[in-house]
């Protein structure tokens, strides 16, 4: 490397701000009576192509933390490697301690902000959940916690629904139903969404668990699907 002679006139400036290649769309999270739930679809897109339809975008970190990621999938995998390494260190120390959700959230904030300050971000918006914690860390290191969280398109389409329907006393079934409704709307309206989803929950008693992917029901009964609009008497086919 030291012996390379680079001519400034012919070398492009080195760029550390990457752009994402393989990306996941929205991640949703909400608190319910008994724990916290996180949901996302299982699609990773390659530009506009729906390339990987069984991608796991929500993972457990240690026994009682969930991490959901939107954005660049390889950066999420790198973050998981980092966090799993920390978990291993905890296990090795063998003193009964592990990193909880709030600590993971703070740690990720530091990591994301540091990368942003070097102009080479990890291109993710992350949702961190624990038995009594729900927070977001974005690609520039912004953090906040709330009763419900959404990334990507979810912040435009799901948050209004969550604001209307969320109650602190929601049961697990109600919480799941609400998340499914939000993901259904996202499937209808986000070009990068899929109807195959995962829902994960984290509770005091049961720890962190991620469901197997499953397909959600979608509704195609609106009259507008059946009526044709391209006819001669119409205005052009909208």
């Amino acid at each position, binding site marked *: 490397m030291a012996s390379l002679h680079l001519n400034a006139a012919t070398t492009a400036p080195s760029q550390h701000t990457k752009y994402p290649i393989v990306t996941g769309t929205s991640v949703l999270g909400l608190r319910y009576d008994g724990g916290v739930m996180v949901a996302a679809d299982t699609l990773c897109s390659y530009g506009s192509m729906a390339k990987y339809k069984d991608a796991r975008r929500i993972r457990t970190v240690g026994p009682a933390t969930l991490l959901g990621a939107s954005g660049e999938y390889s950066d999420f995998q790198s973050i998981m490697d980092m966090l799993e390494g920390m978990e291993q260190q905890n296990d090795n120390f063998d003193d009964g301690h592990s990193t909880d959700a709030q600590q993971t959230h703070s740690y990720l904030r530091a990591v994301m902000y540091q990368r942003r300050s070097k102009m080479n971000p990890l291109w993710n918006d992350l949702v961190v959940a624990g038995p009594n914690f729900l927070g977001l860390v974005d690609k520039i290191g912004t953090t906040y916690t709330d009763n419900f969280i959404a990334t990507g398109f979810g912040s435009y389409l799901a948050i209004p629904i969550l604001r209307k329907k969320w109650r602190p006393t929601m049961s697990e079934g109600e919480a799941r139903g609400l998340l499914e409704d939000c993901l259904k709307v996202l499937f209808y309206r986000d070009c990068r969404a899929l109807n195959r989803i995962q829902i994960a929950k984290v509770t005091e008693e049961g720890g962190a668990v991620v469901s197997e992917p499953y397909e959600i029901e979608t509704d195609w009964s609106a009259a507008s699907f059946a009526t044709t609009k391209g006819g001669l008497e119409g205005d052009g086919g*909208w």
Partner: protein
Amino acid sequence: MAALANSFLSPESSRLKPGELSTGTTIMAVPFPGGVVLGADSRVSTGTYIANRTSDKIAQLSSKIFCCRSGSAADTQALTDYVRFYLQQWEVETGRNATVKVAAHLMRKICYQNKDNLSAGVIVGGWDEVDGGSVYNIPLGGTMIKMDCAIGGSGSTYIYGLTDALHKPNMTKAETVAMVKKSISHAMARDGSSGGIIRTCIVDESGVEREYIPGNQLPYGP
């Protein structure tokens, strides 16, 4: 992000102005002895937002001639309006029903002469007494090519292999319909800019049949 997004899109999509509505799209038309089958998805997107998931991309040009629209929604709607008008005029002046060849030529003329300002890929298909069922593909730029199996739109890139493998000349009407539905399903399963329902239009001597498949009953996917 914008630079990358454009490099993955087909020439049609990358020429759209920011915020312009795109019929992202998968469209298809296949002739069979005695008629033609046209098919399309129903998704209209602005960027990654689905502005309309119930759109009808198969526009009628005359009683037995239709066209599938892809590219800019505004441009293709305007094109359709012009061609309908000219075809009506043609039918009045000649006293005959328009042929698919005439409709396709009119479409091509407008697309070619305005190539710098249009972002439209259309497939004209229909039935007439002279040629029976025929299909003309008119991509960006205004080339016009008569084809045995025409596909278009951003989703078509994912089904070139499939349609090459499935298509045979002189299939029956039922086989052709099944092939169109299957192919469009596969494209919708992979293209983020295509989705919703599959609309089909079958045109033959006896008339026009318009059908649709709801998004949860597709032959494949989503």
